[in-house]
């Protein structure tokens, strides 16, 4: 646990020093807005695994697919024949001649 952190309750009590009647839900919504803005920075690094499908090129990066909310992918590994994940290169020029819509 962090040395010092604020819960929403503490944030609300500090805000209510200046705005005694500010609604709790409204403050929470504003905190969530601020958190979305903070998400633009690399504040939370995570990893996830996904299963490949033969002859499928595209994999969706969304909540529905893998249960993750991704802002920016910075590294991808692929499992080799011994079960070890090995970093694979990013294709910068991604205008490849063939295209799959799956």
């Amino acid at each position, binding site marked *: 646990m962090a040395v*010092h952190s604020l819960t929403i309750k503490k944030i609300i009590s500090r805000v209510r020093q200046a705005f005694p009647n500010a609604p709790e839900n409204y403050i929470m919504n504003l905190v969530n807005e601020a958190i979305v803005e903070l998400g633009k920075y690399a504040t939370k690094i*995570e990893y996830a695994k996904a299963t490949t499908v033969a002859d499928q090129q*595209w994999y969706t*990066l969304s909540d529905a697919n893998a249960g993750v*909310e991704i802002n920016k*992918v*910075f590294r*991808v590994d692929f499992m080799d*024949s011994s079960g070890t994940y090995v970093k694979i290169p990013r294709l910068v020029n991604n205008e490849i001649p063939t295209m799959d819509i799956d």
Partner: protein
Amino acid sequence: MASTYKYPEDYISWFIKGNHLAIVTLKGNDSTSTHSKYGQYKPIDEAVTNGILIHYQAEPNAVSAITDTPDVDNVFHTCLIDYVKARLYQDKAGSSADAGISGVSMNLAAMHEGKWNEAVKRNGMQKRDKTGGDRRVAMPDFT
């Protein structure tokens, strides 16, 4: 299924288009076929269970109860108060019929907005890998 790639880094690449991750391979077994031969990018040819490991910057979780702690580094917690106060002062300025109260509220909103922006830029831009210090010491050459 397990992977049959001994050196996946020599064949497989990835790229992003919008909200989609593409996994492509150079491997091909038909040297005469059109657009599926060795050396041409095409969709990954294997079904591998948990075959891809993706490292990413994640979206912080939203708060939903007053007992929650914001899902961001604790250096950002105090500046969340500034963000909330800036919005509340803006609301007060917009809803007040008194020009004096509106003016003071707008000034306070601008002050808290500035503190929020400064804190986000200062703490958000820095490297957060918990390591620091010199990477290499360069000694001067006196000869």
